[in-house]
């Protein structure tokens, strides 16, 4: 596969990437030649068992790691080998990443957590307004000034979602966003994703190992032992 006309129709194209980790003396082949495409506005769910390579794939999509081989294209541009500063800008402006354990900054309030990436692109007042609006949208209007440690797991995940959305990214990438939540909070978070996908048109790539969450998918990708099925 190359960055030809097909790639231009897709937001992100992953082409035959491999990734091997070392755990002590053991080499773990996490991805063994995975290729896929993410289209604009698409809700993609990646499922697989533990150790299937889901999170590794997501890190590649989120430009948080580099593949050992293969290529990643963003809007037709090869991005797996570009300098860190360019990848950082893509993460900031075009990608929103939601970590499994929220990865919020505990010394900041819900509002401040969302504001930080926005302040890189907007002035503070605009960043604040935008963040406030997003938090209200995800149902946290009354919790704006609470420190994240004062929020429940579901609320923290919603803060992470709002943070991922704050710079109007083209794609939101979520790594098992419901794994630490109870069923009600999990449903709430998934509904939020659905709303984001429908109303804002953000492409969403979500990893899960919960089979029932695949109902949200417009596109389902199954990973097993580092390969797509």
């Amino acid at each position, binding site marked *: 596969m190359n960055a030809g006309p097909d790639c231009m129709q897709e937001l992100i194209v992953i082409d035959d990437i491999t990734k091997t980790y070392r755990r002590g003396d053991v080499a773990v082949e996490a991805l063994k030649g995975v290729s896929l495409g993410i289209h604009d506005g698409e809700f993609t769910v990646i499922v697989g068992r533990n150790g299937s390579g889901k999170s590794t794939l997501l*890190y590649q999509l*989120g430009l*948080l*790691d580099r593949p050992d081989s293969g290529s990643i294209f963003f809007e037709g541009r090869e991005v797996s080998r570009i300098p860190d*500063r360019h990848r*950082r*800008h893509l*993460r*900031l*402006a075009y990608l929103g*990443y939601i*970590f499994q354990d929220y*990865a*919020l*900054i*505990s*010394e*900041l309030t819900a509002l*401040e957590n969302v*504001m*930080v*990436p926005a*302040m*890189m*692109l*907007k*002035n*503070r007042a605009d*960043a604040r307004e935008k963040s406030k609006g997003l938090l209200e949208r995800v149902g946290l209007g009354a919790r704006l000034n609470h*420190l994240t440690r004062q929020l429940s797991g579901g609320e923290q995940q919603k803060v992470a979602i709002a*943070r991922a959305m704050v*710079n109007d990214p083209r794609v939101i990438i979520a790594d098992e966003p419901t794994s630490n939540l109870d069923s009600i909070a999990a449903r709430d978070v998934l509904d939020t994703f659905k709303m984001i996908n429908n109303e804002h048109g953000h492409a969403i790539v979500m990893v899960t190992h919960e089979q029932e969450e695949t109902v949200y998918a417009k596109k389902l990708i199954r990973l097993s032992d580092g390969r797509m099925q």
Partner: protein
Amino acid sequence: MIGGWKIPFFLAARFLKHGSKWTFSLIVLLMAIAFVNLIFVTALFNGIIESVNNQVIDTHMGHIYIFPPEGSEYIENMDDVSARIKSHGKVRGVSPHLYVPGKLLYKNISGTWQIVAIDPEQEKTVTNVSKKMIEGSYLEKDDTDRIIIGRQIAGGRDVEMNALSFRGARAGESVTLDVGGFRKTFTIKGVFYTRFLDTDKRAFISRKLLDEMVPGMSGVASSMIIRIDKTGDEKKVIHELGEMKIRGKLFAWKEAAGYLDSVTESFIHINTLLTMVGMMIAAITIFIVIYVDLSSRRQQIGVLRAIGIRPSLIHITYILQTLVYSLAGILIGLLVLLQGIVPWMKKHPFEMPIGDAMLVVNYHDLLFRAALVVIVALLSGLIPVFITTKTKILDAIFNR
């Protein structure tokens, strides 16, 4: 990128506000202790050096010492010379000294001590021996059969040179001065204790007596000592006195007491050495504390990188925090030092054989050490953050 530069201030302020108060307090306390430690040793040595210097000036030779001119044994026309020196605007007092080459006899003990004939009133304008009487009283101009002796001559149990002394001579007792077979008996009017060994080995008699005993020596001095308004102006005043054609060899107290200069030089070297050791200990302590604190923030730094914050802004964020730690530490250290330790030491100085040593804190030392604490803290903060922003984002986030 609009507004990105505000992020470090925004984050640093919140990290400090909402971070662990214990961690903050501990780091600031350590910074304060490191700073006080750095200053304390230097201030103490400054105090010791100042004490030695003051003792030399205040008890022994004033600021300027005049030896007889080349080829002469005495300074002639001392009253005239004194008057001319006193006319200098910066001179506060002049006291001619005439050394009496003789022995003192007390009971069956005899010893050769430096016996100095002085005008007691003039001596008061230069030295403070008159205020250091521990027994009896100071000389008066008309005391022609009285002598005051230093504690090292009088002797006593706790006296350093007791073995060579009169081993307990007291005010009111008699001593005999033997000058080449000519003897005169004096009553010990008082014993002084300046805590400066060279002064406490002296005995003073009234100049009036000597002039009566040896009229040929009237009007001459073996040396003259001068007190000026301000320590440090010696060279300038010596130069100006030279222009006034004052006959004699004029030396600043530091040159005249060259051996003491080497003592203070030694103190300065020890101080430098201890300061360097103190600085290394402070640097290592500060480095470890800041390093541990910031190393525990790897995940935080990883998250900031993951969401697209520029590494340079992350560096500045933690540098600002470290700056606040160090400035707070310095401020608290200064308060403890200047409002607590220095005033306390003023009331309770270290009693040393050479005099009382207090803490002498000078602006230059404070500034240098404060700058050192800040620089070490900033480096200590920058290194772990720099390393973390160079590691893989995922390794930072998952603390691998």
